[in-house]
């Protein structure tokens, strides 16, 4: 036991000091085990002083620092995050630091768009012999972040805490989704796209397991495997097939929100960055989400029409390596709108619509974002919102009214607008030769029954040969992921199957109308080395406009 009972003199003295009034930033440092952590140790052994603001987490390699760690740190109250590793060429694991650098660049861009000043994130190489360098960098970084001030206010941090989980009204849910109407015919499983490739998935069985768990054990999730809860694509093919009208996708959302309460989250893709980035947008930081707007684009802050861009500026840095260009969709949409004589507003204060959070059962997160968007509508006084993303469109049109009764604004998807304007002859399109095929996005198609508009729009381009894939419209096959969970060998099979159908049409390009279809099918096409070109339909429209 301790024999030191008396406080050392130095400590006593310090306690008498008046409380500091200067801002003390919270700095989180990640250090690789082999170089930088040892460098920090050397700083200690050499008694080199640096501010106590810095707290260090040891990882084996700087390449281990997942972007989600950094996002989480900023969300939880870090004012600055520094990642440290071995110098290039000295990595204990060959090139882990090079991997860290690649990750860092992408992450820095996402954080910049989110509104986190670039100076708050830093990457430094510090060797085991550079104790002085460690102390100097930490001191300098702390002072720099001190000048920037706090990233989040204590209120913003506190607002993220969720209270005790509400117990959901099960009876209401059962009534709303109609699961009790299930006649166990199995058509849902027969039609289920996931079940085609993953024999472990069965909507019918999931519902049955739910009922048995609920009535026999009073624990709704007891007999459900997490596979059943998290593999669902929420494409609603089952809903379309069901003769009893069971809304299985909605039921899944409920199951997921219950699973989260039990700590059983699914496996988010991309290290969970997508969901974290969406939640981050609810914190109220001033984002930099409009840098992509070209100087030639005509936008009008006071316009009563708003173009709702969605998460495209975030997808861009993350997915360029798949060959997808999510921001091209935004630029093209603006070009088309301008050509139609519309000068829309694009709003810096826009936040994610919350689609993905809703479908992963994070209802609280969804509601926060939705509330911010609805507040923005009031603030800006817009009368009409135009969407390029089918998911945002669906969320505004269908989900917001379910949670908030008043959404008094006209919502239009680009496909609808184009269809109307082309019919009226208000958009001149030139000739464009080529064989194409079209992927119905589930949110636009099965969920909103917008099937004819895209076809009419594309066919209005002279010379464009639009071929039909085997399964289209209500039967259309999902791109493999709608809300960044459960990407697997099964979804890859699904994508392979879909791309095969596209190839069979003889088309050289598969046109998509949803950024996720574009991203996931581009990734699959690259992965499977198919020659099918994946392109957003707005690119074709813009090309046709230029030919006019």
């Amino acid at each position, binding site marked *: 036991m301790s024999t030191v009972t008396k406080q*050392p003199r130095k400590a006593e003295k310090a306690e008498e000091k008046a409380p500091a009034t200067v801002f003390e930033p919270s700095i989180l440092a990640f250090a690789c085990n082999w170089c930088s952590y040892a460098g920090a140790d050397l700083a200690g052994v050499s008694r080199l002083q640096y501010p106590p603001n810095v707290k260090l987490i040891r990882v084996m390699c700087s390449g281990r620092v997942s972007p989600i760690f950094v996002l989480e740190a900023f969300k939880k109250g870090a004012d600055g995050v520094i990642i440290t590793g071995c110098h290039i060429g000295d990595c204990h694991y060959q090139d882990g630091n090079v991997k860290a650098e690649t990750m860092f660049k992408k992450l820095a861009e996402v954080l910049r768009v989110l509104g986190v000043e670039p100076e708050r994130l830093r990457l430094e190489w510090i060797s085991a012999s550079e104790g002085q360098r460690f102390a100097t960098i930490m001191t300098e970084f702390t002072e720099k972040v001190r000048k920037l001030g706090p990233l989040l206010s204590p209120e913003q941090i506190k607002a993220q805490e969720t209270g005790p989980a509400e117990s959901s009204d099960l009876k209401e849910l059962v009534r709303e989704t109609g699961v009790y109407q299930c006649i166990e015919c199995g058509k849902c499983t027969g039609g289920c796209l996931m079940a085609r490739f993953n024999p472990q998935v069965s909507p019918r069985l999931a519902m049955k397991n739910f009922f048995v768990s609920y009535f026999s054990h009073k624990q709704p999730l007891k007999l459900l495997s997490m596979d059943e809860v998290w593999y669902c694509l929420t494409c609603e093919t089952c809903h379309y097939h069901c003769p009893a009208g069971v809304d299985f996708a909605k039921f899944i959302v409920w199951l997921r929100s219950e699973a989260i309460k039990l700590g059983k989250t699914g496996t988010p893709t991309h290290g969970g960055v997508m969901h974290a980035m969406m939640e981050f947008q609810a914190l109220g930081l001033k984002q930099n989400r409009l840098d992509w707007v070209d100087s030639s684009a005509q936008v009008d802050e006071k316009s009563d029409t708003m173009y709702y861009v969605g998460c495209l500026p975030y997808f861009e840095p993350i997915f360029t390596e798949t060959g997808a260009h999510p921001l091209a969709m935004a630029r093209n949409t603006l070009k088309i709108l301008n050509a139609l004589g519309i000068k829309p507003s694009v709003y810096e204060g826009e936040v994610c619509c919350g689609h993905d959070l809703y479908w992963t059962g994070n209802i609280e997160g969804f509601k926060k974002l939705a509330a911010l968007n609805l507040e923005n509508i009031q603030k800006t006084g817009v009368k009409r919102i135009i969407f390029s993303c089918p998911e945002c469109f669906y969320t505004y049109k269908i989900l917001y009214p379910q949670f908030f009764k008043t959404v008094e604004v006209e919502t239009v998807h680009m496909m609808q607008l184009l269809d109307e304007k082309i019919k009226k002859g208000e958009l001149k399109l030139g000739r464009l030769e080529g064989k194409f095929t079209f992927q119905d996005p589930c949110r636009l198609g099965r969920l909103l029954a917008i099937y004819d508009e895209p076809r009419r729009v594309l066919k209005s381009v002279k010379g464009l040969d639009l071929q039909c894939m085997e399964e289209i419209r209500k039967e259309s096959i999902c791109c493999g992921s709608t809300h960044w969970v459960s990407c697997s060998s099964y979804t890859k099979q699904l994508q392979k199957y879909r791309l095969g159908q596209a190839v069979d049409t003889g088309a050289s390009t598969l046109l998509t109308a949803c950024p996720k279809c574009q991203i996931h099918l581009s990734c699959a096409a690259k992965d499977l080395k198919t020659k099918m070109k994946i392109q957003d339909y707005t690119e074709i429209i813009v090309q046709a406009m230029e030919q006019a």
Partner: protein
Amino acid sequence: MSIQLQATKKQDPPDEETPRIGVFICHCGANIAGFVNVEEAAKYASSLPDVAFVQKNLYTCSETGLREIKTAIKEHKLNRVLVASCTPRTHEPLFKSTCQEAGLNRYLFELVNIREQCSWVHMQDPVRATEKAKQLIRMGVARVALLEPRQEITVEVTRKALVIGGGVAGISAALSIAASNIPVILVEREKELGGLLRDVNKLYPTLGAASELVDEHVKKLQKAPLIKVMTRAKVLNVSGFIGNYKVQIDSAGEQIEDTVGVIVVATGARIMIPNGMYGYDGKNVVMQTELERRLKDGSFSARSVVMIQCVGARVPEREYCSRICCMTAIKNAILIRETYPETEIFVVYRDIQTFGTLYEEDYRRARELGVGFLRYGLAKLPAVDEGGVTVYDELLGKNVRIPYELLVLSAPLVAPEGVTELSKMLKVPLDANGFYLEAHAKLRPVEFATDGVYLCGCARWPCDIGDAVYQGRGSAARALIPLRKGKVYAEPLYAEVNPNVCRDCRRCVESCPYSAITTVEETVHGYQRTVSKVNPVLCKGCGACSVLCPTGAIGMKHYDNTLIMAMIGKAF
């Protein structure tokens, strides 16, 4: 769905026990207690969730301190231990063993560094140093509560080695390994052993006959019963990992299969044929090897010789220095001047690289013997006509024409055929020039990053006979470590793939520097799928694959996202 990214909810520990954490805070004499209020930190620690016991120690690492930990584990039924003291780099093994001695799994331990990274670096501000120590302990408690028990991985090593390549490097490696009583299979592609050495007349700097050296080595091989020499042989397939490589070899049509513990790559190099350069025809314009052959069999008769150095070396398409050509040219020039004193010799060079003591001596000797040296630059290459070479002498600043009867070209060593095939088989990398890339030129020479595979000689980069022998012996010394131990131990800190969410994109496979990840085909509920699988023995636990994985399928044992996220959650 075992990977959980959100750390907001705590996972139940796998042993179904509620964590009972013991926190031991070290004073380290006055090193910690002089600046951190240990009393206050201890009080704070006892308020943290799952903490069942808190104790302050004067020196936790002392006999008394360690005994106190052991006693507390037993008396307070602790199932997790956290020590807040100094750096894990020095003291973690000691505390882990202490836990183990008290019957607690050694991986249910966490060390929080409140000395090197707190008391010693915040000496002027004890109040905030105490505050930071409390936060670090809080983060550590969050982590230790989620730790799972683990077992160290042990793999038996097959006491047998495969050496690929029967040149002087490979032979040296084989002899050294066999000298330690370990059986060796030596595979040579050609009919005869000796590799490039067989084309050499005399060796620099001793001027001994190369054939004698070959004979001597072959004789030694014949006397080594533990070495099985296979000529006209080829490695067809390699699978497995350190200690357990399954190899398939074809020897003159006969196929054998065997298991070896380690593999030494000594596949050597070949000399680039300077086709289309400086009028190369193999008669009057020849390579150094042809000159060596003529000197050896006495058919050499030229009265004037010009040698051009760096033919196809240190040029944009082949930037490296072949390392042996300067000394080869100087050696042959000396031999000619000594045997045929009337023959005039000019060496047309870009830079002469005769490093070390003995080689520089030879250069001086060649000059003394009247060998002429003319320097050219890349901007103006020597021009060859029938009977003469025109060199723009950079030092004189004018063209000089030297007549020749024999023009000798010094062409570089290049990677031999089949390296790509073998590198894929062994899953080891090649550099841009097709030479094998070792783990680290200074920290881990003659070794690949992949455990159990070593390299030596010209397979690595051009080297001369002396270097090949050094490297052969060096690689053998490294290979003998696992071979002699008979076992390989690996810390159970490795990546693990959740096959249910792996989509076989192979980003992890391609990025792993240790070839620890491969893909396997499996059948689940009658459905075929290909997924990645990590070999825990080869995995070094860097965790980069888990960050690269687009589907979130890869978790890291002992450093999982859940654990790090839990620490981040408690950092502020």
